[in-house]
C-alpha cells in the first residue's frame, strides 16, 4: 500500500504502455546461455523475475534492465528486454538519466552488494533520496564472487576470505537501514529461494512510484556457500524469519493455538524486541505499518546481521513526488509558458537583449 502524502497519486507503471497480448516467461527469455555457477541463487531470482514480468502486463519493449558489474550484473543479458550491462557501481546513475528521459519505460536496476554498497554507494543513496522511478534489485550474497571471494561491505566482521586471512575487520552495512537513512520511499527484502515472498515484494515494488530498493538474500555456493541456510532450513527458519504483512500483527515461528506464530515483535524503549506471544498482551504486539519509517528502521535492526532474526517483506512503502516526474513537470511548465507566448523561439534566445546591426 502507499500512503497519500498529498501528492498526485500515480502508480509505478501508469505511464508505461500496456502489452496488447498476454506475455509469458518465455517471451522474457533471451537466447543467451545463462552462465552463472551451478547452484547460484541468481538462477532462482532470474526464474522468478522472468515469471513475474509478464504479470505486470506492460510492453516488453518498454522494459529495461540496467546493471553494473558483478555476477548478478549479467542479469540483463538473460532477459529479452532492452538492457545495459554498464560499469561498476554506476547503474543507478545511468538508470536515472534513462528514467528521467523516458517516462514510458519500466526501468529495473540489477546490482550486488559490492556494486551498490561499495563502489557505487554514492549513486545508490542519491537515487534513493531523489526517489527516481527505478526498481533496484540488490542481490546480496555478502561476498565478492566475480573476483573470486573477497569480503564485501555486507560480509560479517571476522569473515575469513582470500583478502582477509585473519578475518575481516570491516563492519558491515545493513542495506535496509542504509536505504531508510537515505530517504528511500520503498524498501523490501526477500530470499532468493522464496519464490512467493520474492514475487510479492517485486509486485509491490513495481506498483510503487519512485525508487524501490529490494534486497534479495542470495546464495553464492562457491565463495559463501550456505550463508543463508539458517533462513531456509525447516528446523531453523521459523524461529528466525519474520514475514511482514502490512496491517497485520508481527507474529512468526511455529503456529500456535491462535493460528499465528508463537513469537511476536513488541516495542521496547525506542526499538523492538522479540517475545513469546504467550507472554505478552496481544495489544502490545506491533502491527506492521509500511508508512511508519521509525518502525521500518527498528525492524531493520531487530537483531545484528547474524540472521538471528531476519525480517522480510515490505518495510516501507510511502508516496513522495518522484524526481523524474518533478523534472518533467518543470520542463512541461516551461514549455507551456513558452508556447503561450508563441515560442519557444530559438532565434530570439540567440539574439538576446542587446544586439547591433552592421550594414553592408
Amino acid at each position, binding site marked *: 500500500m502507499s500512503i497519500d502524502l498529498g501528492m498526485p497519486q500515480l502508480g509505478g507503471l501508469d505511464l508505461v*504502455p500496456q502489452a496488447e497480448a498476454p506475455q509469458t516467461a518465455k517471451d522474457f527469455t*533471451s537466447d*543467451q546461455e545463462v552462465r552463472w555457477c551451478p547452484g547460484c541463487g541468481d538462477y532462482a531470482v532470474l526464474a522468478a523475475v522472468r515469471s513475474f514480468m509478464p504479470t505486470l502486463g506492460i*510492453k*516488453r*519493449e*518498454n*522494459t*529495461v534492465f540496467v*546493471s553494473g*558489474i558483478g555476477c548478478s550484473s549479467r542479469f*540483463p*543479458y538473460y*532477459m529479452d*528486454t*532492452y*538492457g*545495459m*550491462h*554498464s*560499469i561498476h557501481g*554506476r547503474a543507478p*546513475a*545511468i*538508470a*536515472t*538519466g*534513462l*528514467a*528521467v*528521459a*523516458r517516462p*514510458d*519505460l519500466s526501468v529495473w536496476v540489477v546490482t550486488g552488494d559490492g556494486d551498490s554498497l561499495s563502489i557505487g554507494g*554514492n*549513486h545508490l543513496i*542519491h537515487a534513493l533520496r531523489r526517489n527516481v522511478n527505478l526498481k533496484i534489485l540488490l542481490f546480496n550474497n555478502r561476498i565478492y564472487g566475480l573476483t573470486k571471494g573477497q569480503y564485501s561491505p555486507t560480509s560479517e566482521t571476522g569473515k575469513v576470505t582470500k583478502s582477509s586471512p585473519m578475518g575481516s575487520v570491516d563492519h558491515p552495512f545493513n542495506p535496509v537501514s542504509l536505504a531508510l537513512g537515505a530517504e528511500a520511499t520503498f524498501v523490501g527484502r526477500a530470499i532468493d529461494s522464496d519464490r512467493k515472498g520474492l514475487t510479492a515484494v517485486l509486485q509491490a515494488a513495481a506498483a510503487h512510484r519512485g525508487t524501490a530498493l529490494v534486497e534479495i538474500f542470495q546464495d553464492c555456493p562457491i565463495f559463501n556457500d550456505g550463508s543463508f541456510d539458517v533462513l531456509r532450513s525447516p528446523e531453523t527458519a521459523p524461529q528466525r524469519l519474520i514475514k511482514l504483512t502490512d496491517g497485520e500483527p508481527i507474529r512468526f515461528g511455529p503456529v500456535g493455538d491462535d493460528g499465528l506464530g508463537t513469537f511476536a515483535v513488541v516495542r521496547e524503549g525506542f526499538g523492538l524486541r522479540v517475545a513469546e506471544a504467550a507472554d505478552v498482551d496481544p495489544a502490545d504486539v506491533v502491527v506492521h505499518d509500511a508508512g511508519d519509517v521509525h518502525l521500518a528502521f527498528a525492524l531493520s535492526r531487530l537483531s545484528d546481521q547474524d540472521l538471528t532474526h531476519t525480517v522480510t517483506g515490505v518495510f516501507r512503502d510511502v508516496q513522495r513526488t518522484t524526481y523524474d516526474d518533478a*523534472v518533467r513537470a*518543470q*520542463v512541461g511548465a*516551461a*514549455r507551456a*509558458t*513558452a*508556447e503561450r507566448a508563441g*515560442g*519557444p523561439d*530559438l*532565434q530570439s*534566445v*540567440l*539574439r*538576446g537583449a*542587446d*544586439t*547591433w*546591426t*552592421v*550594414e*553592408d
Partner: protein
Amino acid sequence: MTSTDTRPPTGDAPGRPSQPTVVRRDRVVIRFAGDSGDGMQLTGDRFTSETASFGNDLSTLPNYPAEIRAPAGTLPGVSSFQVHFADFDILTPGDRPDVLVAMNPAALRANIGDLPKGGIVIVNTDEFTPRNLTKVGYAGNPLEDDSLADFQVHRVAMATLTRGALESTGLSKKDAERAKNMFALGLLSWMYSRPQGSTERFLREKFAKRPDLAEANVLAFRAGHAYGETTEAFAVVYEVAKAKLPAGTYRQITGNTALAYGIVAATHVTGLEVLLGSYPITPATDILHELSRHKAFGVTTVQAEDEIAGVGAALGASFGGRLGVTTTSGPGVALKAETIGLAVALELPLLVIDVQRGGPSTGLPTKTEQADLLQALHGRNGESPVPVIAPQTPGDCFDAVLDAVRMAVTHRTPVILLSDGALANGSEPWQVPDVAALPTVDPAFATEPNAPDGSGAFWPYLRDPGTLARPWAVPGTPGLEHRIGGLEKADGSGSISYDPANHERMVHLRAAKVAGIPVPDLEVDDPGGAAELLVLGWGSTYGPIGAAARRVRAMGRDVATAHLRHLNPFPANLGEVLGRYRAVLVPEMNLGQLASLLRSRYLVDAQSYTKMTGQPFKAEELQDVFLTHIPGAHS
C-alpha cells in the same frame, strides 16, 4: 610625468567645462582592477556591453581569484577584467592595458607592471590608507612619491565622490560606497564616449526588486560621467570608431554562453531532446546555469551527485534516444573517463565538454590551460578512440558544439569538446546565426530488425558500411529488444564475445569508425605565399597566434598560420601541410602535447613553444618567438 590632481567639483563653482580634446584611437585596452568584492567583473562586463552596442570589435579577459572573497585588500584578492576594443577586427583581449583602473593599492600593485610607459592610471585614492598600503607591501604611498612617474596618473576619490552623489538617497555610508564601481564605469564611459543608456537600463533591471539600489547605482554611474565632463582634470576624451565587421546582426557572447546556446540549438538541428548531466565545477558551471533556463526547448538538466553520475545520466538518456551531454573541467573528465570508455563500447552518442583549467589536480580553477588534450585523446583504458574538437574563439564555441553533435549522432560515438578558461569567460562580438540555416542532423533511429540471416532478429552491432556506425535502437521499439554493455561484443550480432579474432576486429572497427569521420581540410593563412615557417595552433591560442602573425607580417616577414579545430581525427591534409614548410612551430598552453602528437604521427620536426602561467599568450610575446623561428632569422 603627466599627473593631474583632481578634487571633487564644488557645488558653488560649477563653471562651464572647457571642451576636452577629442583624440581618435584605432584600439584601446582597458583593465578594471579592484578587490574581489569591488564588482570589477560587473563593471568590465557593462563597459563591454556598451562597447559592443556601440559597434566596436572587442575581446575580453576576466581574471579573478578562485576564492569567492579572498581577504579584502590583499594581492590574492585582486580581481580584474580587461577589455580590448577597436575599429578593426581584433583577435585578442590585448597584451598590455592602455588604461588601468585601480580601485585599491592591491589592484595597483598587482597590475602596474603590465602597463606600458605613458599609460593612464586612474586610482581610487580613498583606499590608499597607510593600513591598506602596508597590507600589500608598499613602504610609502605610490601616489605621493614618484614611483608612478612613467604614467599619467589620475587621482580620484571615488568612494567620497560616490558617497556625496548619493547623499540624497539616505543609504548608509557603506552601502553608498559600494556603488563606487559604477562611478568608475561612468567616468570611463565618458572618457571613451560610450553610450550610457544600456547600463542604466541594465541597472534598473538588475535591481528591479530594490529600486533604491537601482537608483543609487544609476546616480553613481551618472556622477562618474559628470565628473569626467566637469572637472577639467581629464583634458582628453577618446573615440574609437565602429569596426567594419561583415554585415549582420551582432551581440556580445562569452564562450560558456555560446556552448550553452549550441546545446540548445542541438535540440533544433537533431530533433532530439537534450539531457545534461552535470556537477558544478569551475570554469564550466555557467553552462549548467544557462541550460537550466532553457527547459522549454526540451533541455533537461540533472545536477548529479558527482561527475560520474553526471556523465552516467547523460549516457542513460542517450540509450533512451535523447542527446546526452555532460559539462565539466579537467578533474571531472578524469572522473568520467570510465563512463566515456563505456560509451565508446556502447557506441552511443554523447557530448562531453571539458572547459580546461590549470592542472594537475585542483590546479588553478579560474585560470586557463590546454593541458587536457592528451587526457581527452588517451585518458581511458584500452584502445578507446574518441573524436576531439576544439573551438578557437568564444563565438566559435557555438559552431563547435553543433559540429560535435553531428559527429556524435551520425557516428554513434562520444565526442569530447575542449574549451578552456580563456574562451569560457572571454567575450567577443558574435554574428547571430540564422536558425533556419543551421544544417540538420538525422538521428536515424533503427525501426526494423536487421539480421542478415533473415531471422527477424535485431543485431545491434551490424554497421553501416559507409560510416561504420551501428544502429541506434531505442527502448520502446518493438522487435528490437537488445542488450549492450561494456563487455566485448561480437561484430554484428552484439552478443558477448571473448573470441580473440573478434576482439582484434572490433578494436580496429572502432578505430576505423572514428578515423573515418569526415573533417574539413586544414586551411593555411599565408598572405605572402612565401612563408617558410608554419605556426600551428589549436583552441584558444587562435587569437594571439593570429595577432602575432599580423605583427610579424607588418614587419615585412612571412609566416604561415593554421589552426586545428579537429584534434581527432586530424584533417586528411595535415601531413601534407606540415611537409610544405621548412619549420613548424606549435605554441601551446601545455608542455607540448600537440607537438608530440605531430612528431609521432608525421615524423615532422615540430618545435614547441609552451606557456603554463594560467594566462593566455600575448601577441607581443609570440611575435618575438615567431621571429626567432623563421628559418634564417638570425643570419
